[in-house]
C-alpha cells in the first residue's frame, strides 16, 4: 500500500528532473557563435604562419579613417548609382565581388591590396592598385576611370586596406579570389542556353536583362546588352566566367556562407553556360588593341 504514493512521488520527481535535464543539458549553445570565417595565412613558401579572420564591418568604426572606409564600402556596393559618370552600364563593383568582397572564391578582396603593384599579363606592365581599380571601371563597368587622387579612389583603396587588416605584404590569405576550372572542357553553348533558362534566368532575366528595384537600380546585374560588362572584362571570357559561375552561382540556394552560393552546376555545365552568356551581344572595348602586347593571349580572349 505504501508503494503507490512513493511511485507517484517518484513519478513527480522524474518529471521534474527530466524537465530540468532538458532545459540544462545538451550541446553548448553553438560552438560557432560569434566566430567569424577564417582562413590560413601562408608565407611565400606556402607555409602556414597564422590565421586571417574576416573582420566584421563593426571593426571599421574603431579606425581613425572610418568615414573614408565606409564611403569605400558604399561605393563598391552601389557604384552605378553613386558614380554614374564613371559607370557606363548598370553594374556595381560588388556585382562580381560578392558580399562586399568577403566571399571565398567569389572575387574577394582579401589579398587585393597586398597583390599590387604587380605585372599583369594583359598589360604586360606594372599595374598599381588604382590602375587595377580603373581597369574594372573601364571594362567590367564599361565606363571611365576615376582620377587616381580622387576621394572616391582613396575611399575604395581604404576599404581594401582595412579588409587586409594587419596581414603583412609578404603573406597571403589562403583562399583564391577566383577558383580553378578545367580549361580543357569544351563548351557547348546549346546546352548552356538550356541551363541558363533553368538556373540563371529567374534572376538575370530571360534576355539577360537583369532585374531592377523600385529605384531602377539593379538587384541582379544584366549579363548581356548595353548595360552589361564589355568584351574587355575578365567576365567576358568563357573560363573566367565559368570559374565564377561554378563557385558562386546561383546564390541563395544552399547553406554556404555568406550568401548560399554555388554548388549547383558541374564544371562542364558552368563552362557551357558561361560560353552562352559571355558570347551574347555586349559593348565593345575600344582600346582592346593594347591588350597582351607581348603575346600569351589566353585562348578565351575575345579579341
Amino acid at each position: 500500500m505504501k508503494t503507490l504514493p512513493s511511485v507517484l512521488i517518484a513519478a513527480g520527481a522524474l518529471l521534474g528532473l527530466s524537465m530540468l535535464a532538458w532545459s540544462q543539458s545538451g550541446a553548448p549553445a553553438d560552438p560557432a557563435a560569434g566566430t567569424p570565417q577564417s582562413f590560413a595565412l601562408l608565407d611565400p613558401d606556402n607555409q602556414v604562419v597564422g590565421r586571417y579572420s574576416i573582420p566584421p564591418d563593426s571593426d571599421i568604426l574603431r579606425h581613425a579613417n572610418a568615414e573614408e572606409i565606409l564611403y569605400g564600402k558604399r561605393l563598391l556596393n552601389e557604384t552605378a548609382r553613386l558614380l554614374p559618370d564613371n559607370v557606363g552600364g548598370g553594374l556595381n563593383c560588388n556585382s562580381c565581388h560578392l558580399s562586399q568582397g568577403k566571399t571565398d572564391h567569389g572575387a574577394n578582396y582579401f589579398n587585393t591590396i597586398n597583390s599590387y603593384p604587380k605585372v599583369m599579363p594583359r598589360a604586360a606592365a606594372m599595374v598599381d592598385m588604382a590602375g587595377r581599380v580603373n581597369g574594372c571601371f573601364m571594362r567590367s563597368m564599361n565606363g571611365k576611370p576615376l582620377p587616381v587622387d580622387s576621394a572616391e579612389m582613396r575611399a575604395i583603396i581604404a576599404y581594401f586596406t582595412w579588409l587586409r587588416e594587419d596581414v603583412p605584404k609578404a603573406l597571403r590569405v589562403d583562399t583564391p579570389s577566383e577558383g580553378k576550372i578545367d580549361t580543357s572542357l569544351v563548351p557547348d553553348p546549346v546546352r548552356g542556353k538550356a541551363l541558363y533558362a533553368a538556373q540563371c534566368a529567374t534572376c538575370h532575366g530571360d534576355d539577360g536583362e537583369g532585374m531592377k528595384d523600385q529605384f531602377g537600380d539593379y538587384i541582379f546585374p544584366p549579363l548581356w546588352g548595353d548595360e552589361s560588362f564589355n568584351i574587355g572584362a575578365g567576365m567576358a571570357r568563357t573560363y573566367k566566367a565559368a570559374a565564377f559561375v561554378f563557385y558562386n552561382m546561383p546564390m541563395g540556394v544552399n547553406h554556404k556562407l555568406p550568401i548560399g552560393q554555388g554548388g549547383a552546376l558541374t564544371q562542364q555545365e558552368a563552362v557551357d553556360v558561361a560560353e552562352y552568356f559571355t558570347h551574347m551581344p555586349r559593348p565593345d572595348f575600344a582600346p582592346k588593341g593594347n591588350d597582351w602586347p607581348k603575346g600569351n593571349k589566353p585562348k578565351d580572349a575575345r579579341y
Partner: protein
Amino acid sequence: MNTLKKILLAGAAAFAAAFLIAWSTPYWYVPRLEAEVDFADRELIARGRYLAHAGDCAACHTAPGGKPFAGGLGMQTPLGTIYSTNITPDKDSGIGHYSYADFERAVRRGLRPDGVHLYPAMPYPSYVIVEDEDIQALYAYFMSEVAAVSKANQPSTIPWPLNMRWPLGWWQLAYARPRSFEPDPEHDASVRRGAYLVEGLAHCGACHTPRGIGFQETALRDDASGRFLSGSVLEGWYAKNLRGEDRGLSTWSADEIVNFLKTGRTARSAAFGSMADVIAHSTRHLHDGDLRAIADYLKQLPPRKGREARWTPREDTTTAALRAGDYAARGALQYVEHCALCHRLDGRGAPRIFPALADNSIVFAEDPSSLIQVTLAGGSMPRTPHDRMAFTMPGFAHLADRELADLLTFIRNGWGNHASGVSVRDIHQMRREIAHKPTHYAPEAQQ
C-alpha cells in the same frame, strides 16, 4: 485502522479507479464503427490520396530521407522525443492488419487496435470532425495504394513511468471529445468548405492555435474566445496568427493566401521552416477551389476586441537613410553587411526570389521566434512546379548574440515595421532550442 492507512487506502482506490476508467475507454467511450470499403474503387482511392495530401499525413509519417509513410520522424516534447509511426499497409510493422473500424478509431479518436491511446501529436482532436466517407476514402487509399514498408516503430525516449499511455485516456476524455463538423449557416459554401478543411484534415490549429496547460489546443474551432488560429510557437517556429486582425492576416489578401499555399511564396514573402513542409507535402497538391475555400474561411475569422484595425506601417525612413549611407542606427551596419545583398536597402528583396522584410507579417509578428530561428539556422522555400527555382537562406549562427539581436531589432523596426525588439537572451534561447532538435529515425533509407 489509523488515519494514515485510511488515506493511503483511499488514494490507492482512487488511483485504481483512475487507471481502470482510462484503460477501459476503448470499451465504452470509443465505439467501433464498421463499414464496407471497396478497395477496387479507383475513384475512392484517388479521393483518398487527395485527402491524405489535405491531411498532410506525409509531413509527419515520412521521415526526411525515409520511405513514404514509414514513420520515424522525431518530434520534440518536454519529456523526450516521440517518433511518428509506420502507416504503410505492412502486416507486421504497419497498419496492414487494421480493419476499417481500427483505422477509423486511430484517425478520429486516437486509439490503437490494441487499446493503447495515441499521443495527441496525432491530430485526432481535429480529425474527429472528418466525415465518414472521407475516412473511408483514406482507408481505401492507405490499404491499397501505399507501398508496404517493413520497418518497426521507434520507441519514444520518454522515461518510465512517464511513458505510460493510459493517462492519455483521461487526456482524451478531457480534450478529445467525440464531435462532428458543425457548418455555420451564415457562411457561404466556400467558407463552409474552408472551415471543414481548416478545422479538420488540414489541422491548421495543431500549430497555429495556442496550447493550454494540458498541451491541448485551447480552441478547436472559431468561438467567442478568439483563440482559434491566433498564433503559437512549436519547435521554435512561430506559427503565425491567422485571424483577420492587425498582426494576423489583415495585411494578406485572399489571393495572396491562395498563392502562398499553392506555390510557397508571394511577391513579398516565402514559406520556411515547418510551413515549407506543409506546402511541399500538402497544400501545393490541393485544388484551387479548396485553397480558395481555405483563404475565404481564414479571411473571415473575426478579429479579437481591440485588434480590428488593419496593421499599417509607419513612415519608412530606413530606405532613405541606408541609401544615403547613414548606418548610424543600431544594427544598420550589420544589415548592410550581411543582409542587404539579398533583402536590399529598401527591404523589399526581389519578388518571388528573396522575401521582403518590409510589410512582411512574419517580420513584424507578435512573436519573433520564426525570424530568429530562420536567421540562426537558415531556411528553404518549398519547391513547387510553379517556379523554376527555389531559394535558400544560409544560417547566420556564426554571428555573435549581440549582433544578431541588434540586427533583428533593426529589421523588426525598419522600413515602417514596428514590433518588439529582440534581446540577446532571445537569441541564446533559440540557439538552445535548435541544439535540442530531435534526430529522425529512417533506417530503412540505408537498406
